[in-house]
C-alpha cells in the first residue's frame, strides 16, 4: 500500500507499453493487443482466487490465446478479427464462471494500489527486457511493420521479428493488467502511441512523446485515484483519452 511502489510500477508498465505502441500501428497490430488483453481474464481470475501475482496468472493465458487464434486461423482461414472475438468472449465468460463477483473489480480495472515489492521487481525486470530487446531490434521491427517484403529482401527474418514483437506485447499485456485490469490493456499500448502520432514530426519525437504521454497519464491517474478514491486504472485510461482528444485538436 505504498504509493511510491505503485507509482514506480505504474511508470515502468506504462512506458514499456507506450514504447511498444509506437511500433504497433503498421499492420493492424493494435487489434492484437486488445483481444490479448481480454484473454488474460481467466488467468487474472485464477490469480485473484488463489492469491498469486496477476501478471504470472495472466501471462500463460495470453500465450494460450495467441496459440489458439493462430491455430484457428490456420484451420479455418477466417479473419483474425472474427476469431479473436470468439476467443475474447470465451475468456471473459470463463473468468466469470469462477471469479467471485466481489473480486471482479480488480480483474476488470486493475488495482495498482495493491502492488508490493515483488510486483515492482518483476515489473522492473520485465520492462527492462522489453526496452532492451525492442531498442536493439527497433529498425528491423519497424521495417517488418512497414513491409515484410522489403524486410525479407534485406535479409531480415520477418517471422522471427513478428514473434519477438508478439512476445513483447504478451509480456506488456500481462504487466498491464496490474495497472488497468484485463479489459483495457490495449488502450495502454495504443492510446499514447496514437496521441504521439498526431503531433510527431519524426520517429524520435514519436517515441519520446508516446512514452511521455503514457507515463504522464499513469502518474496523474494514480495520484488522482488517491485523492478521489476512483480506481486508478479507470482514471489512467480516461486521462490518456483526454490527451488523445487534445492532440487530435492540435494536429497540424
Amino acid at each position: 500500500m505504498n504509493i511510491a511502489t505503485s507509482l514506480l510500477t505504474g511508470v515502468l508498465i506504462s512506458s514499456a507499453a507506450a514504447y511498444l505502441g509506437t511500433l504497433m500501428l503498421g499492420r493492424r497490430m493494435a487489434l492484437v493487443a486488445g483481444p490479448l488483453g481480454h484473454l488474460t481474464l481467466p488467468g487474472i481470475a485464477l490469480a485473484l482466487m488463489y492469491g498469486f501475482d496477476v501478471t504470472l496468472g495472466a501471462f500463460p493465458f495470453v500465450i494460450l490465446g495467441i496459440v489458439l487464434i493462430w491455430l484457428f486461423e490456420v484451420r479455418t482461414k477466417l479473419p483474425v478479427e472474427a476469431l479473436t472475438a470468439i476467443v475474447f468472449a470465451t475468456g471473459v465468460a470463463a473468468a466469470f464462471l469462477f471469479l467471485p463477483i466481489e473480486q471482479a473489480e480488480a480483474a476488470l480495472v486493475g488495482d495498482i494500489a495493491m502492488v508490493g515489492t515483488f510486483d515492482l521487481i518483476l515489473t522492473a525486470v520485465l520492462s527492462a527486457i522489453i526496452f532492451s530487446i525492442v531498442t536493439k531490434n527497433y529498425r528491423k521491427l519497424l521495417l517488418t511493420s512497414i513491409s515484410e517484403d522489403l524486410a525479407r529482401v534485406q535479409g531480415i527474418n520477418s517471422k522471427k521479428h513478428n514473434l519477438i514483437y508478439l512476445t513483447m506485447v504478451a509480456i506488456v499485456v500481462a504487466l498491464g493488467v496490474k495497472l488497468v485490469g484485463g479489459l483495457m490493456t490495449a488502450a495502454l499500448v495504443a492510446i499514447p502511441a496514437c496521441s504521439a502520432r498526431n503531433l510527431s514530426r519524426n520517429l524520435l519525437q514519436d517515441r519520446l512523446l508516446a512514452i511521455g504521454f503514457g507515463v504522464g497519464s499513469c502518474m496523474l491517474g494514480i495520484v488522482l485515484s488517491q485523492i478521489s478514491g476512483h480506481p486508478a486504472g479507470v482514471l489512467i485510461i480516461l486521462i490518456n483519452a483526454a490527451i488523445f482528444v487534445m492532440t487530435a485538436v492540435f494536429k497540424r
Partner: protein
Amino acid sequence: MRILEVEDLSVELEGEKILENLSFHVDEGEVLTILGPNGAGKTVLLRTLLGLLPYRGKIRWKKKDLRIGYVPQRLPFIKDFPLTVKEFFRLKEVSEREMHGVLSSLLMADPSILDKKMGTLSSGQFQRVLVAYALVGSPNVLLFDEPTAGIDLGAEETVYDLLNRLKMKRKITILLVTHDIAVVYQFATHCLCLNKRMLCFGTPREINGTLLSELYGGKVKIYEHRH
C-alpha cells in the same frame, strides 16, 4: 554473362495458379520489361524471384557478387509511421555519404527532403526515394515494380530517363514491371509478356501486334515512338 536463369517456374497461391511454366533468362546489363494486364502475375513474378513466395521449377541467380535492389510497387503502411526520409534510409545500414550520393544521383540533392515525412511526399518524390533506397549498397540488379497509377515525376525527368541514366552509370541489370508499352520500345533490351502463362520472350522488335492483342485481349494499338 548470365545473371538469372528461370526454368519451368510455376507459382500457386491458395490453390490458384498464378504463374505457369515460365522459362526465361537475363544477361548482365540487360533491361527486361515484364509486360501484362492487371492480374497477370507480374508482381508475383518479381516477388517469387526475390524468394518471397513458394514456387515449383528452377530460379538460378548468379552466385558471385549478387546484390539485388528492390523497388516495391507501393508501401501502403508507411503512412502509419511518422518516418522522415532520413529515418527511412537508416532502416538500411547506410552512411550519410552514400545516402547523399544516391539522392543526388536521382536529382534530389536538396537536403530539405531528408526531414520530410515519407507520408507527405508527392507520389513522384516517393517513387524516387524508393528507387534511391533500393540503390543503397550499390546493387547490380534492380527489380522495379512500377506503380499502377500514373505518377508525376516532375517535368525534368521521367522514371525511364532515370533508369536509363542508372543503366549507363552503374551498369546495372534491370527487371522492370510496367504497363506502359512505349517503355518497351524506348528502353528495354528484352521483353517478357505475361498473362499467367508466358506469351512471349524476346527482344522488343520481335513483339508484334498480334501478340500484344492476345496479351491484352485485342484492344491494343501500338504507337511506336522513335526518338
